[in-house]
């Protein structure tokens, strides 16, 4: 059963990947709903203008007003993701030997349903604050989905908890915490209430910038760490670390662009281009940039989680295989686990 190459495990992994990959466009669409303030474009829920969600005429949806198109599309895709989450639970229930992972799948399904209900409540009460909470928990659900994908991967089964000190892991978890906190602040900026005083909003912006700096520093630190270590075990950590570097760079550029797209720059007299720049209210590219910034934020969370998982569960490298076996055997929890070596591959038996 615990054989890492068991095709039944691959099934769980595939299903988890599928749901996760589908959740990302869902986050985009949800972001577009906020960018276009389309949350109330459809005033009822769970129906759409009195129709059943799935029976709302396609032509009325596609050729309807843009805000309605986005909101109804978000609802449709959300229900598709919900259906796939059910499929994932069934597959996990039948194929996954680790009870805790099956439970995480149930938790994920529950989270998706809760998220849907929260979205519905937001519409029924027309409450912008609930919209903000809905926007905060969206990426968390996405992260949970990707965690299932990570935990059901072949690598996870091959790996074992890291023993000893783990500086990199701690940075990764800190990064994860920071990027989640950053998500909360960002969601506040996007869902600011008209009653807020300018100085409160300003302090949120400053917090957002400060945390962006911290996150950038943490990512730079991580990429130095994974490169400097002589230990080739760290090679594996380079993938998530590199991904983080790319995402953080992209995210900072997008953040700057988001500000410019919404509020122009403060240095207008610098060049004729800046002086002539006019913010485009609800322009297409502008809304894509703003939405992209929040969607990339959720990727940042997922990648930090990825790095954390990889640094807390290491796959022993062949050279140090002997050592690893020894250390594994000292660990009561993982006695059943075997180190992956080519000769130990066999057809899985339950």
């Amino acid at each position, binding site marked *: 059963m615990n054989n890492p190459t068991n095709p039944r495990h691959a099934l769980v992994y595939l299903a988890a990947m599928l749901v996760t990959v589908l959740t990302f466009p869902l986050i985009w669409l949800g972001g577009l709903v906020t960018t276009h303030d389309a949350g109330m474009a459809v005033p009822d829920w769970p129906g759409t203008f009195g129709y059943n969600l799935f029976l709302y005429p396609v032509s009325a949806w596609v050729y309807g007003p843009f805000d309605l198109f986005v909101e109804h599309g978000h609802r449709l895709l959300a229900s598709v993701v919900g259906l796939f989450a059910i499929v994932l639970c069934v597959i996990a229930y039948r194929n996954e030997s680790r009870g805790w992972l099956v439970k995480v799948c149930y938790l994920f399904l529950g989270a998706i349903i809760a998220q849907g209900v929260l979205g519905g409540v937001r519409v029924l009460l027309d409450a912008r604050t609930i919209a903000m909470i809905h926007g*905060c928990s969206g990426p968390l659900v996405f992260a949970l989905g990707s965690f299932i994908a990570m935990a059901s991967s072949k690598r996870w089964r091959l790996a074992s*908890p890291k023993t000893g000190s783990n500086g990199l892991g701690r940075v990764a*978890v800190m990064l994860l915490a920071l990027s989640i906190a950053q998500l909360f602040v960002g969601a506040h900026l996007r869902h600011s209430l008209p009653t807020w005083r300018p100085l409160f909003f300003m302090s949120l912006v400053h917090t957002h910038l400060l945390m962006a700096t911290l996150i950038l520093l943490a990512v730079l630190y991580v990429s130095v760490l994974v490169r400097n270590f002589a230990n080739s075990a760290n090679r594996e950590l380079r993938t998530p670390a590199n991904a983080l570097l790319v995402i953080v760079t992209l995210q900072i550029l997008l953040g700057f662009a988001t500000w410019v797209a919404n*509020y122009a720059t403060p240095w207008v007299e610098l060049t004729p281009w800046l002086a002539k720049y006019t913010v485009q209210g609800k322009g297409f590219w502008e809304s894509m940039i703003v939405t992209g910034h929040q969607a990339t934020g959720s990727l940042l969370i997922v990648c930090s989680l990825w790095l954390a998982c990889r640094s807390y569960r290491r796959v022993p490298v062949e050279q140090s295989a002997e050592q690893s076996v020894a250390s594994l055997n000292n660990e009561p929890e993982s006695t059943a686990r075997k180190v992956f070596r080519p000769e130990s591959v066999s057809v899985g038996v339950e």
Partner: protein
Amino acid sequence: MFLKQIPPLNSLFSYVLAIWALACFSGCTPQEINFRPNELHVASLSQDSTDQQVSELAKKASEHVGELFGTPDLPKWPSEIADVVDMVKVKRSAGPVGRDKSKVEYGLFRKHCVQCHGTTGDGQGPAAALLAPYPRDFRRGSFKFKSTPMGKKPTHADLVRTLEKGLPGTGMPAFGTLNHSVEFAEDIDALAHYVRYLSVRGEVERRLISAIVNQENAAEQVKIIASKVAESWALADSLSVKPPRLITAWVPEDRTAAIERGKAIFLSELTACSKCHGKLGDGDGTSQDYDEWTKDWTIRAGIDPNKKEEWKPMKRFGAIKPVLDSSRNLTLGAFRGGETREDLYLRIVLGIEGSPMPAIARKENDNPGVTEEGIRDLVEYVYSLSNPVTGANPVTGANPVTGGADPTNEKGAENEQSN
């Protein structure tokens, strides 16, 4: 559970849950959206009042105005005063964002504008403090880029122009894209009506506050004030100045000569343009002045806007840090009121209300001032600062250097032919 697999995630998880729960609870107390009483105006008119007196007086004025004009969710228009807004459009712009069962969209102002201009139209939306210049406070009834003389209200077309084109170099967006799709095509028009509504409401409130401070009877005064303010808006269209048709396709020598004459006027003592805009028009002048919105609660209330210790106490009434309204660098070609020669003509002849930029002194009878020809030369000079003489032949559009057509001049050439 799975958290045991990665121990630090355990504490992280509970942390996130806690923040999330906190956000839920803080969010479950929906704040009512209402017009904010104009405490800053009360405070600047009556310096000796205590905070409580200020807030009571402001509230009193706000209530009287509320009886006539309703709330942000349910706007009203008193039948006694001039009918300068279309209430159907005002109602569509008001209220929370969303569509009703028949797919009509409401809440346009909260969808597009509230972030900067605030529910009250006081220029104190959440993002306001981070913008330079600050978003317009409609309550003063003053607008910068319009076709009517100083002290007069903008026309509907002026407001629509600002909304469609935006104001380059400021946070004020261009909403022209709304016109491209059928379902949003009416929105700008509706929003312009709402700006008028907010402006009338706010100006009535301001004037009522002055009346109350002067011990006048609020209940009597409010209707008189309301009809005066509405009347001033009703007059706007008849006061609109139409710019003359200015030459776009110049004979190069004539243009150079006009620019030279215009430059002399720009540098003259009479116009003082260069005092503010600098000898080269690059905004290098010495003038350091504030706009009228800032002066209202600083200089006019005996507060020096340059001294932080003096203006800071006003922050508790909603004031934001005074910022200089510096003279524009004219060489960048970023004109907020529009970049055609006709637009510049209007700016120069009418000035920019609320900012230090004055209307030009015109020669009338025996008054010293600039003649109509002089103004046209001045316009050409200002225009040339960002559209210099390139040497292209404006009639054929051929550029003597490259020999190809100069796209920027094609329009001019067409105009010349059609004239």
